[in-house]
C-alpha cells in the first residue's frame, strides 16, 4: 500500500521521462541523499568516515564502472583495477606537470586517460568473447601494473613507483578534514551514479543490453557493434579511472602500482556479482557488503571468538568464510542483493494486505 504508483498521473512528457518516475522513489532518494550529505558528516566518527564510508564510496564508483561494462554490455573484465591505476597515475601526473591544474579537471582527465587505455584494451572484444575476453583483459591488468612500475616517469622517479597525492584544493579551500573529503567524494559519486542511471535507461544503455543479450542479433537490427562495445569500455574505464583517482587522493593518499593488483579487480567483480549484475543500486549494495564483510569478520574473530583460534588459523578461517559466503550468495540469490531489494518493493506494494 505504501509503495504504489497508483494515482500518479503523468501529464507532461517531462514527467513521463524523468529518471525516477515513481514518487516514492524520488522521496526515498532525496531522503537518502539528505542523510548522506547532512546527517552522516554530522554524526559519523572519524573512523567510520575514513575507514568505511570512504572505501565504500570509491569502490561503489569502480563497481559502477565495471557494472556498465559487465552487467549492461556483457563484456566480462578482470582488469578494472588496472584502469583505476591509470586514472590515479594520470591524475597525479596532470596535477604534477601542469601548473595550476584544477583538482576536478585533473580527476576528469585521469578518467579520460583511463578511457583511452580502456578502448585500446577493449579492441579485442570485437573479435573474442566470453571467457577468452576475460583472460584477455588480464593482459591489461598485468601489463599496466608492470609499465607503471617500470617506467618511473609515471611516478615522478620515486622508488618502486609509489606516488603521494598532492593536497586537494578547490578554489582555495583545502580538503583536509575527513568530513570535507567525504563530502567531495560523495558529491562526485552521486553525480556520476545519476549520470550512469540516466545513461543505462537511454538509447546507449539499451544498445548495450542488446549487445549483451546477443550481439549477432543486435547487429542484425542495426546496432553498431564496434561503437557500442568500445563506448562501453570507454565509459566503464572512465568511471574506474575517476574511482582510481579518488582512491589515491581522497582515500589512501599514497599508492603504488602493486596496490592495483588482480585481487582488487576480483574484489570489484565480487561487488557487482553480490550486489547484482546489471543494476546501478547493486554496485552500491555490493560495495557495502564487500567493504563491511572483512571488518565484520575481524570483529567477530577478535571479540566473540577471542582466544579460541590462533591468529594464523583465524585469518585462514576468514578466507574460508569469505569464499563460502560468496558461494552461498551465488546459490541463494544469483541476481544479487539488488534483486532482494526488488522483491521487497514488490511486497511493499501489497503490504499490509495479503492480495
Amino acid at each position, binding site marked *: 500500500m505504501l509503495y504504489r504508483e497508483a494515482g500518479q498521473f503523468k501529464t507532461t512528457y517531462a514527467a513521463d521521462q524523468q529518471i525516477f518516475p515513481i514518487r516514492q522513489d524520488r522521496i526515498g532518494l532525496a531522503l537518502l541523499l539528505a542523510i548522506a550529505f547532512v546527517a552522516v558528516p554530522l554524526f559519523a566518527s572519524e573512523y567510520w568516515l575514513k575507514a568505511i564510508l570512504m572505501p565504500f564510496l570509491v569502490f561503489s564508483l569502480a563497481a559502477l564502472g565495471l557494472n556498465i561494462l*559487465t552487467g549492461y554490455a556483457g563484456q*566480462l573484465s578482470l582488469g578494472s583495477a588496472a584502469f583505476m591505476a591509470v586514472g590515479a597515475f594520470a591524475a597525479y601526473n596532470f596535477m604534477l606537470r601542469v601548473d595550476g591544474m584544477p583538482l576536478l579537471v585533473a580527476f576528469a582527465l585521469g578518467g579520460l586517460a583511463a578511457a583511452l587505455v580502456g578502448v585500446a584494451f577493449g579492441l*579485442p572484444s570485437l*573479435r*573474442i*568473447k*566470453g*571467457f*577468452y575476453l*576475460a*583472460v*584477455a583483459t*588480464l*593482459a591489461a591488468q*598485468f*601489463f599496466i601494473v*608492470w609499465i607503471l*612500475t*617500470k617506467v618511473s616517469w609515471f611516478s615522478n622517479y620515486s622508488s618502486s613507483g609509489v606516488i603521494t597525492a598532492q593536497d586537494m584544493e578547490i578554489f582555495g579551500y583545502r580538503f583536509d578534514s575527513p568530513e570535507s573529503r567525504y563530502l567531495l567524494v560523495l558529491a562526485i559519486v552521486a553525480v556520476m551514479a545519476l549520470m550512469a542511471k540516466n545513461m543505462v535507461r537511454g538509447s546507449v544503455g539499451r544498445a548495450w543490453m542488446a549487445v549483451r543479450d*546477443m*550481439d*549477432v*542479433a543486435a547487429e*542484425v537490427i542495426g546496432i553498431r557493434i564496434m561503437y557500442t562495445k568500445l563506448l562501453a569500455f570507454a565509459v566503464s574505464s572512465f568511471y574506474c579511472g575517476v574511482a582510481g583517482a579518488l582512491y589515491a587522493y581522497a582515500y589512501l593518499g599514497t599508492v603504488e602500482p602493486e596496490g592495483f593488483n*588482480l585481487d582488487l579487480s*576480483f574484489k570489484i*567483480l*565480487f561487488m557487482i*556479482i553480490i550486489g547484482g*549484475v546489471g543494476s546501478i543500486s547493486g554496485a552500491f549494495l555490493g560495495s557495502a557488503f564487500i567493504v563491511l564483510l572483512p571488518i565484520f569478520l575481524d570483529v567477530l574473530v577478535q571479540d566473540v571468538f577471542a582466544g579460541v583460534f590462533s591468529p*594464523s*588459523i583465524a585469518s*585462514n*578461517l*576468514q*578466507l*574460508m*568464510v*569469505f*569464499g*563460502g*559466503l*560468496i*558461494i552461498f550468495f*551465488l*546459490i541463494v540469490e*544469483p541476481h544479487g542483493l539488488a534483486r532482494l531489494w526488488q522483491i521487497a518493493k514488490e511486497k511493499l506494494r501489497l503490504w499490509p494486505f495479503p492480495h
Partner: protein
Amino acid sequence: MQFFLEVLIGGLLSGVMYSFVALGFVLIYKASGVFNFAQGAMVFFAALTFVGILEMGVPFWGALILAFGAMVLLGIGTERIVLRPMVNQPPIALFMATIGLTFFVEGLAQAMWGASVRGLDLGIQDEPIEWMMETTGIGVSKFDLFAAGVAAVLVTALALFFQYTRVGRALRAVADDHQAALSIGIPLQTIWRIVWAVAGFVALVAGLIWGARNGVQFALVFTALKALPVLILGGFTSVPGAIVGGLIIGSTEKLAEVYLGAYVGGGIDSWFPYVMALAFLLVRPEGLFGEKHIDRV
C-alpha cells in the same frame, strides 16, 4: 646458438609445467562447461596435503594415495555443494563461484597444514644432465626432463582413459552435448564427480612437480594464472591444445625475457604470455585447437 637452444629447451620444459595446470582446467571445462578458476588453489591444496601427510611419517606412496583421496573428496564436495545447486546458472555465475571456491580452498589448506613454506624432495636433482652437457654443451635439467616424462605419461593415460573405457566414452558424450548425454541415460552428476576427481589428480601431480621445483608455498596459486594464457592459446576444450599451448607459452616467455627483457628493464614474463595470447586470439578467436564458435540468431 647454443645459448639460444638452451633457453628454448628450458622454456619448453617449463611450459610443460604450465600445461599440467592447464590440463585440469580443460578437463573440467570440457565436461561441465565450468571455467574452474580454483584449479590453482587445488594444486596448492594437493601439494600441501601431500607434504602434510608425508610429515606425519606416512611413506611416499601412502601419502600419494591419501592426498589423492583428499582431492577426490574435495571434487565430490564441490560437485555436491557448489555445482549442483547452480545448474542452469549463467557461466559467469559459475565462474564467480569457483573464485569463491579458490578463497575457500586456500583458507582450508592453510588452516589444516599451516602457511609455512615447505620443501618437497621427489628424489630427482635439479641439475644438468652430464653427458649432454659434455657432448653438446647444452644444459638440460634432469628434473625438467622428468617433469616432461610425467606429462607424456599423464596425457597418454588420459587419452587412453577417454578413448577406451566406458566412463571415458560417457565423459566424451557429456562434453559433446549435455542434454543428449542425459537423454540416453548417462548420469551427469556422476560424470561431473569423476571429472572433478580426475582434475584433482592432475592438480596433485602438478602440485608435486611444482612443489618439488619451487617449494610448497602459497605462490603455487599464481601458477594457475600462468595457465590461463596457455588455455586461451590452446583453446579451452582441447587436451592437446593445453600441451602445445604450454610449450609455446613457456618457450616464448623465456626467449622474450632473455632477448627482449634486457631492453625494457626485465620482468616482462608477468604479462608477455597474456599479450602474446591476446595477439594470437585476434587471428584465431577460438585458440589453436578450440571448437569454432558458431552464432545462431
